[in-house]
């Protein structure tokens, strides 16, 4: 797209302002992260004496120590397991529900949908105490399954919305054709409808994965042991162990942050598309 505008002096000023504003935004977003990464290469005394100095030499000692102090890789694995299973479970369950809501007619359909969408307007933090009680009563406290269950539910509203509109946009003729070919209800869903809703499925998956990868509150509330805690908890969890070794702490923050940034940099188009899909009212 070529620029559409004629340039008057005021517009030049506006352009200057635009670039300044953009530069500020980039600084605000990048400075904290760059500062952490640089600090992870400084020695303890360098950090203490001047918070803004550059590291005198580059060594990965801090990273080695960080991994010794806190089992970050274990937390990483926990997060990966929980977020992956949650994503699969969430997308599959809500694809089924979304499909039925989009394509089938049955009694109380609108009522049930309205009730389910109610979950969208409840601030989930308000449910902390009963969710904690239910999970405890089910004997699931401090298990990965508890988090998987809760996260699958917490991401229900947005996935339902995205998936319902994804299935709604598939032409009904396709479905009818499948039935005429003799495919049953389940086969039509799996073999015809699911592949057609790929875009929606991907969006729901990305959103769910991101949410459960980063969730903090319920993870803090529902787990306590190293076996089940997730990556977002790892940093504050080991603050005391890190407080004698700031280099290792900065290294640990870097380890926790970098994978997300790399994955985002690679898949940013897909992530942006998912976010947009997730925000469009269904």
């Amino acid at each position, binding site marked *: 797209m070529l620029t559409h505008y004629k340039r008057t002096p005021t517009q030049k000023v*506006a352009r200057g302002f635009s670039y300044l504003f953009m530069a500020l935004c980039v600084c605000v977003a990048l400075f904290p992260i760059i500062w952490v990464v640089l600090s992870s290469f400084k020695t303890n005394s360098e950090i203490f004496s001047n918070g803004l100095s550059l590291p005198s030499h580059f060594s990965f000692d801090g990273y080695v120590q960080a991994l010794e102090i806190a089992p970050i890789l274990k937390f990483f694995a926990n997060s990966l397991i929980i977020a992956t299973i949650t994503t699969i479970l969430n997308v599959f369950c809500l694809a089924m529900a979304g499909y039925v809501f989009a394509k089938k007619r049955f009694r109380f359909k609108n009522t049930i949908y309205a009730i389910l969408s109610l979950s969208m307007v409840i601030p989930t933090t308000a449910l902390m*105490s009963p969710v904690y009680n*239910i999970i405890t009563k089910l004997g699931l406290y401090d298990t990965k399954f508890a988090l998987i269950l809760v996260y699958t539910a917490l991401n229900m509203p947005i996935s339902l919305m995205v998936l319902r509109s994804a299935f709604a946009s598939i032409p009904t003729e396709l479905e009818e054709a499948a039935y005429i070919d003799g495919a049953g209800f389940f086969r039509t869903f799996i073999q015809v409808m699911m592949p057609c809703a790929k875009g929606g499925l991907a969006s729901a998956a990305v959103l769910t994965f991101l949410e459960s990868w980063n969730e903090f509150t319920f993870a803090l509330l529902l787990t306590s042991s190293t076996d089940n805690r997730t990556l977002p908890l790892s940093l504050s969890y080991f603050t005391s162990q890190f407080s004698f070794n700031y280099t290792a702490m900065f290294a640990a923050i870097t380890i926790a942050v970098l994978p997300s940034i790399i994955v985002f940099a690679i898949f940013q188009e897909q992530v942006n598309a998912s976010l947009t899909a997730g925000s469009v009212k269904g």
Partner: protein
Amino acid sequence: MKQKNGGWIALFLAPACILFILIFAIPLVMVFVTSLFDYRLLPRTFTFVGFSNFIQLFTEDNRFWPIFGNTVKWLFIHCIFHVTLGTLLAFILYKKPRGWKFVRVTYMIPNIISQSAIAMIFLNLYNAQYGAVNSFLKLIGLESLQHNWLFETATAFPSVTLTWFLFAGYTTTLVLAQLLSTDESLIEAAEIDGATSFQIDRLVMFPVVKKMIGTTVIMAATYMLQLFSMLYITTGGGPGTDTTNLPLYLYTTVKANNYGYANTIGVVIILLGFVTMTLIRKIFGMNKED
């Protein structure tokens, strides 16, 4: 087309409904019901007390109103200024100045990484001894302006607000996506009519994205009503209750094993959320569903 699929339909709906009942419906009922009970672990009690939890919260608990005030203040700041910041950037970027894609991606990064990591980063940035803020002040010779930012009464609230206020990547991404998908002929027509760039933004583009801005305001409000890890990790809600919001207060009440009272706070959060959402929908004309 009508088939006998009742069984299948029920089966397809079942997982979603079970999840809803387990994690939303039952807890929701529990929140409302037990807010009327004196329900705690030590000493073990579960007695009906009517609205006395609410009365205590509103009239006797001198921590409640400051905390409620913080929550509302943050809601306002976030819904208005944070969204404005993001929208402003989106309006700059959609004209595709050089490097706009780079800005869009980098500005999104703080929103993609986990909030607890951001909180840890700011905890260190603000550190009184080695933090970047105080180091910078020292560097430019303004040592007198150094503070223990997150823990002094005067600076805690604004300092902690900055840890999420500046990162409006979601808003920018969403508004920008809407702006970019707008038909270019609209803009061209306006240009032929001799409209300036500012007029186009204000009169043509803004109405186009108004609903999307409404959506981002709702997202901002939701985020604020759920805000927890940023406070828990940085200030812990202190000094006193200066940076405590309702979710954090609820959490500490649960930890003190006072479940009935915690759920009273839960009811307040739900009602506050309901009022806020209704208001936002009204302001942005989003009342027509679908």
